[in-house]
C-alpha cells in the first residue's frame, strides 16, 4: 500500500489539483451557466505563481495574490457576462480563454512562450493538497445546504420558477462566477506548486476538454460530483493505457455514453438512487402503519 502510494504520488497529487479545478467548473455550472472561464483563471494564477516564484516570493503570499487577482478579474468578467445569457455568455468565457492563450504564446519574455517556465521549487505535497481539497469540499457542502442549495437547484432546472420565488438570477450568477474564478485561481496556483512548472499546454484546448469531462462525468447535482469526476479523469490515463494512442478517442466515447445514459453524471445517479430508496422506505412504512400515524 505504502509503496503503491509512493509510486502514484504524482497522480494522486494531480488528482487533488484537478478536484479543485472541477469545483471551480462546478460552482458555476451548478447555477445553470455554461462557462469555461475557470481555465482562464487557472492559467492567470498559474503563470502569476510561476513568475512570482522565480523571484522567490513566499508561497503563501503567492496564493493570496492569486486569489486576489482571480477574485477581482472574476468579478469584472462576471459583471460583464451576466448581461448576456445562454450561448453568448458561454462565448464570452471561451473568448477569455482564447485571448489568454494568445497572450501566453506571444509574450515570451514573461511566459516563456510555448516552452513555459520550468525548474521551480515544489511547495506542496500530496497531503497538503488533500487538506486543501477537504477544506474546500466542506465549505462547499456547507454552502449548498438549505436555502442556497435550493436556489441553485431551481436555477439549474427552471430559471423562471427561480425568478417567480424571488431569486435574483444575475446576482446568483455573479456570486457563482466570482467563486468559480477564486477556485480556478487556487487550482492554477497549486498546480504550479505541485509540479514546479507552468507550460503553455495548461492554457490549451485539452485543459478545457478535461475540465468539461470532469463535470460531465461527475455531474452538478452536489459537491461530490466534481470529486468523482476529477478522480475518474486523473486515473483515466492509467486505466486506458491499453488503448495507447486511441486513449483520447476512448475518453470521447465514455463522455458520449455518460451524456446519453446518465446526463446528470455520477452525482445525479447517486441522488436518484437515494431518492428511490427513500421513496421505497416511505411507502413500505405507509403500508405497515395506519396512514394517520405517519407524520411528515
Amino acid at each position, binding site marked *: 500500500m505504502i509503496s503503491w502510494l509512493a509510486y502514484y504520488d504524482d497522480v494522486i497529487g494531480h488528482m487533488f489539483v484537478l478536484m479543485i479545478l472541477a469545483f471551480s467548473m462546478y460552482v458555476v455550472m451548478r447555477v445553470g451557466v455554461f462557462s469555461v472561464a475557470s481555465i482562464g483563471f487557472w492559467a492567470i494564477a498559474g503563470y502569476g505563481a510561476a513568475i512570482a516564484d522565480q523571484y522567490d516570493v513566499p508561497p503563501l503570499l503567492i496564493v493570496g495574490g492569486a486569489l486576489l487577482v482571480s477574485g477581482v478579474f472574476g468579478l469584472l468578467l462576471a459583471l460583464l457576462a451576466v448581461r448576456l445569457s445562454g450561448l453568448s455568455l458561454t462565448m464570452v468565457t471561451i473568448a477569455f480563454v482564447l485571448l489568454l492563450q494568445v497572450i501566453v504564446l506571444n509574450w515570451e519574455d514573461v511566459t516563456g512562450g510555448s516552452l513555459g517556465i520550468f525548474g521551480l521549487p515544489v511547495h506542496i505535497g500530496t497531503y497538503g493538497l488533500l487538506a486543501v481539497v477537504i477544506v474546500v469540499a466542506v465549505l462547499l457542502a456547507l454552502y449548498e445546504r438549505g*436555502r442556497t442549495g*435550493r*436556489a441553485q*437547484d*431551481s436555477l439549474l*432546472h*427552471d430559471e*423562471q*420558477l*427561480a*425568478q*417567480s*420565488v*424571488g*431569486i*435574483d*438570477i444575475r446576482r446568483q450568477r455573479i456570486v457563482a462566477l466570482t467563486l468559480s474564478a477564486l477556485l480556478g485561481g487556487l487550482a492554477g496556483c497549486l498546480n504550479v506548486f505541485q509540479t514546479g512548472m507552468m507550460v503553455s499546454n495548461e492554457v490549451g484546448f485539452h485543459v478545457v476538454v478535461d475540465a468539461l469531462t470532469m463535470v460531465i462525468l461527475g455531474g452538478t*447535482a452536489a459537491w461530490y460530483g466534481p470529486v468523482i469526476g476529477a478522480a475518474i479523469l486523473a486515473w483515466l490515463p492509467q486505466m486506458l493505457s491499453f488503448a495507447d494512442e486511441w486513449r483520447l478517442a476512448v475518453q470521447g466515447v465514455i463522455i458520449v455514453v455518460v451524456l446519453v445514459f446518465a446526463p446528470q453524471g455520477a452525482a445525479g445517479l447517486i*441522488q436518484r438512487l437515494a*431518492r428511490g430508496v*427513500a*421513496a421505497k422506505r*416511505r411507502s413500505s412504512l*405507509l403500508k405497515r402503519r395506519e*396512514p394517520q400515524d*405517519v*407524520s*411528515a
Partner: protein
Amino acid sequence: MSLLSIVDAQVRFGGVRAVDGVTISLERGNVHGLVGPNGSGKTTLVNAISGFARLHDGSVTLNDEQISGMRPDQIFTRGISRTFQSIRLLSTLTVRENILIGTDRARAEGDGRGAGKLLPRDAVNDRVDHAVALLGLEKFAGDFPSQLPYGLQRRVEIARSVASRPELILLDEPFAGMSRAERDELSDVLIEIADDGFTLLVIEHDMRIIHKICSHLFVMNFGRCIAEGSPRETAELEIVQEAYLGKQHGTA
C-alpha cells in the same frame, strides 16, 4: 384603495396585441376570477403583473407602488406570488422543500417594499407547516413530486405560493387537468385560503367553479377586458356569451 391597479396595460408580441389596453383593479380579500377564450391574453396579463412580460404601455401598481418595470424576483419580494399554467416543481427536492422555496426569499411580515430581512427559521417552518396543512399535504411532505398524482402536484404549487404569505396570489388554471372530485376539493381549499385573508386572481374556464369561489369576475377577449362584475350577472351578459360562442359568427 385597491390592492392592485392595472391601468391601460399593453403587451405586444410582434404584431400580436396579447394584452390590449386592460384597466382593472383587484380588491383586498377578494377571490377574482379571470376567464376568456383560448389565446385571449389571460396568461399574458398574469405575466405582466408578475414581471414576466414587459409592458409596452400602461402601468401596474401594488399598494400605490409602481411595480411594472421591475424584475419578477423584485415583484415577488413585494408580495405577489404566482403559479404557472404548466406544473413547475423541482424533481430533485421533496414536497416540503419545494414549498420551502416559496419562503426562502420571502420577507418578514409588514414590509411591503421588498427590502425587509429574510425570515428566521422558526417563521419559515411555521409558514410551511401552515401551508402544508391548508392544502392537505401532511402525508406527502417527505415524498418527491413525481410520486404524487397530478392533482396533488398542483396543490404543492399552491402551497409554495401560500407559504410565502404574499399580498396577492395569481393562479394560472390551477384546476386544469383535474377530475371533477379533485376540482371540488380544490375549490373548497381555495375558499379556505381566501378566508385566511389572501387575495387571489384565478384563471379558470369552468364557470361552475367560478361561481363557487369568485366574488368578482373579469372576462377577457382579444386582449381586452370586455366585462367585469359579480360572476352571475357578468356571465349572463350578451357580450360575454358571444365571446364564448364567437367562433360561430366571429370568423365568418
